[in-house]
């Protein structure tokens, strides 16, 4: 063997050894991946309010985002977030649900049985005051002395409060009554009330019932409404990993809604049983974003202060909502989504 052949064979040997080493590394990586322990499947009981503000929850459920993160959802549907809170979460039947800020603020006067994990929906353009033009109502100021109904101790109740303040009115300037949500549009159509404060789909029902006589007033510019993700206290304290996975599923849904709004709208519409156009009409407005902002605290404290003034609660002082916030899961997942001062 001469020198040239020796060098050639040595190069071949080194090349072969390197190739074998590379193959061994690849096989090892594949083996590690193949033998990695599977993520355990855990059940999570979710309460689903059938309303557009539940869009992220609906999208995540429809797209299997919970299951993809090892959570097996058990869904219980509710007509509203308030009922999901009281009948589901506070009754111990749910681990997680969404609910508007007003019921949450009112529930916070009771001993803490839940924690706020995130805001999943934020919009001031959800609620409306719908009036009957035939009753001489053309502007908000015309509501003075009129009969106005709403759902008691709810978001639309607080919305009406904010609407009146914005239009330099107070509750005593009008005749306020309380009805169930589904009773409002028929009452307006029947003329037993002159106006009501409510959200979709009852607004549309009233429009259809009154036709041109329906007057819909825009919400105050500075009004905001939050849909909060609530988890049970034990879940927040002892099974924080589930909360993190649930938040991750909602963030994935948020991402999907931003990237593919039409499909997201279709999913939400199908789940709510309404036409996609109905959802699409207000889709641009809602800010479907998982977050926890300092403004939530202000909102909850305002609502609580309002509830005390309106005697909607037996509580005597404003709850400490800072303690009600469960910041850690979202901070660990996406700290930039948390602006609560801490």
């Amino acid at each position, binding site marked *: 063997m001469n020198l040239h052949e020796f060098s050639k064979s040595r190069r071949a040997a080194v090349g072969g050894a390197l190739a074998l080493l590379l193959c061994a590394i690849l096989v090892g990586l594949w083996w590690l991946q193949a033998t990695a322990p599977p993520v355990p499947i855990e059940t999570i009981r979710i309460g689903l309010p059938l309303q557009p503000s539940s869009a992220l929850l609906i999208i995540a459920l429809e797209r299997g985002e919970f299951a993809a993160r090892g959570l097996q959802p058990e869904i219980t549907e509710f007509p509203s977030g308030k009922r999901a809170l009281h009948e589901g979460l506070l009754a111990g039947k749910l681990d997680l649900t969404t609910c508007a800020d007003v019921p949450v603020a009112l529930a916070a006067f009771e001993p803490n049985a839940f924690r706020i994990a995130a805001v999943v929906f934020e919009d001031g353009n959800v609620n409306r005051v719908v009036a009957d033009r035939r009753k001489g109502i053309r502007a908000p100021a015309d509501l003075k002395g009129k009969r106005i109904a709403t759902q008691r101790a709810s978001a639309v109740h607080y919305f009406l409060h904010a609407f009146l303040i914005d239009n330099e009115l107070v509750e005593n300037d009008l005749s306020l009554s309380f009805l169930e949500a589904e009773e409002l549009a028929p009452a307006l159509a029947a003329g037993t009330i002159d106006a009501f404060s409510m959200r979709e789909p009852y607004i549309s029902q009233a429009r259809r019932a009154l036709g041109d006589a329906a007057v819909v007033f825009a919400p105050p510019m500075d009004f905001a409404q939050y849909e909060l993700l609530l988890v049970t206290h034990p879940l927040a304290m002892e099974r924080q990993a589930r909360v993190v996975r649930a938040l991750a599923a909602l963030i994935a849904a948020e991402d999907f809604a931003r990237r593919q709004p039409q499909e997201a709208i279709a999913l939400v519409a199908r789940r709510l049983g309404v036409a996609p156009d109905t959802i699409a009409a207000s889709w641009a407005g809602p800010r479907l974003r998982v977050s926890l902002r300092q403004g939530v605290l202000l909102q909850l*404290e305002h609502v609580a202060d309002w509830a005390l003034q309106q005697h909607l609660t037996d509580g005597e002082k404003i709850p*400490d909502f800072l303690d009600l916030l469960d910041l850690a899961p979202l901070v660990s997942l996406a700290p930039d989504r948390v602006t609560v*001062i801490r």
Partner: protein
Amino acid sequence: MKISTRLLANSALPLVLGAVVTILLGINFYQLRALQQTDRLSREIVQSAADLSLLTREIALPPHRQRAARQWRIRYQTIVVQLARLEFESSPARNALERLRDRMAELPSLFESLLRATEVVAPVKDNEKKDRLIGEILLRNRNILTDAQQLGSFSIQHVESAFLSFFIAVLSLIAVATLLLGGLAYRSNHKIIDAIARLRRGTETVAAGRLDHHIDLATDDELGDLACAFDLMTERLRATMASRAELDQEMERRERIEAKLRESEALFRGYFERGLIGMAVTSPEKGWIEVNEQLCQMLGYPPVELKTLTWADLTHPDDLAPDVAHFTQLLAGEIDGYFLDKRFIRKDGRIVHTTLSVSAARNPDGSLHHVIASLLDISERKQAEAELERSNQELQQFAYVASHDLQEPLRMVTSYLQLLQRRYQGRLDADADEFIGYAVDGAQRMKTLILDLLTYSRVGSRSQPFVPVAMEAVLADTLNNLQEAVRESGGQVHHDPLPEVRADAGQMRQLLQNLIGNALKFHGETPPQVHVSAAPDPDGWRFAVRDNGIGIDPRFFERIFVVFQRLHTRDEYSGTGIGLAVCKKIVERHGGRIWVESAPNQGAAFCFTLPAAG
């Protein structure tokens, strides 16, 4: 530099560069991380200041007061901790940081005042106080925020500076590496391409048959080695081609040598076989190897029978011992040959006198291989020498007897002639007186001749054994004997210190007396000056008797030492002409030699050598 080394350097340089850049990058990354941390802290402080402002406003609103106060305190502590973690190297930044810390230290008291002002339902003047406190806190927050932003800008400046330093360092390294690599590559390519071109031309030249072509590529790399190998190959190829012709010549030369060897062998064989001397080749182990015809004839044995005998069988018993002694020395390697007169016993019993010459042929290790013996038959010469010896002895005996026995009648003749002369001198006529005078003179001269002849003959017959003899004493005796002659001649005799020799003292005296006597006798107008000296000589001592006399013509240097040979008439110088012959005989008897150094009228120096005593 070897090409492989150059390639290695070319490969290693980017690696080194990469390592240096990586290290720089690491250092820069570390600095950037630290600065990034500072920047992050600065931004957090900015955010915190903004948060404090927001919370200050919230505190003023009753629904938010308690919660906002809690958040304010938490946030304030956060800022304090963040400020404690901040570090800057430049003094402006340090000053800004100190200022910021001072401002922060003032906030809590204002904040507590604000809290107290908001605790109760405030009258108008308390509301004014509350508003003033809020304004003050917000203003200071604003200042804090500005300072924090300034710190952020310092961080950004440091980041930019660090990045710029890193960028310049990397750029410089890349530039240096590019120049270095480019230079190396250009130089390598230039050298390699030039070397390959020369190799190609060399290959073509050699392929064209010019085997004397040399590439002579004086580089220290692999191409230089290749060129050397190529030159070596062509040299060997040329040597191979040349050696073929040389091989033919060598074969012819060897054939000639072999022919000469055969011729020489035949010649040697002829000399060996047909030579006039007996020759034999023997070996200590193999005995007789070769014997020639002459040897066989000399010893009277046919070759086959001769080879059955030993060297000792053939040697005369009396001559065996010296031969064995010499041969033992030859075997021991002390001598390589020797000459010896020895006798052999022929097959018929007669003695053969020979001169034996023995020479050794040795192996490369010095051991004896064989012996070449040459025997020259000197039986006839030995016989002649014996006869000559006998003749000489008879002659010497005759001379002694003759001279001794002639003395008595001659004494009678001389006595009566002298008596006749005394009695009848003047009585007879003048002729008778003259005749009687001639007769007396002749008888007297005859007596002298006989005495000298007797002296000469006695040198060999009446000699004494050699004994240590002090030549100083001998000279003294001699001069005492010559005292009258010295006086008559008016000359002088000087001498150097003389040594002691081993000799016959009487003959030494005779020798010096003859030589000094001659020196005193043969002088010219000036009185004789004689000087006797002695000097060491390889043979013993060299004596000289130097005079200032008439000198001797070199033509007569040999003649003067012959008996009765004279160079002058009796009228000129008396004498019988036997003195120097006696001297020569004495010196030769002592194993020395005698000679004369002279020129006419230049004086003469008679020199002789004698063995030293002991």
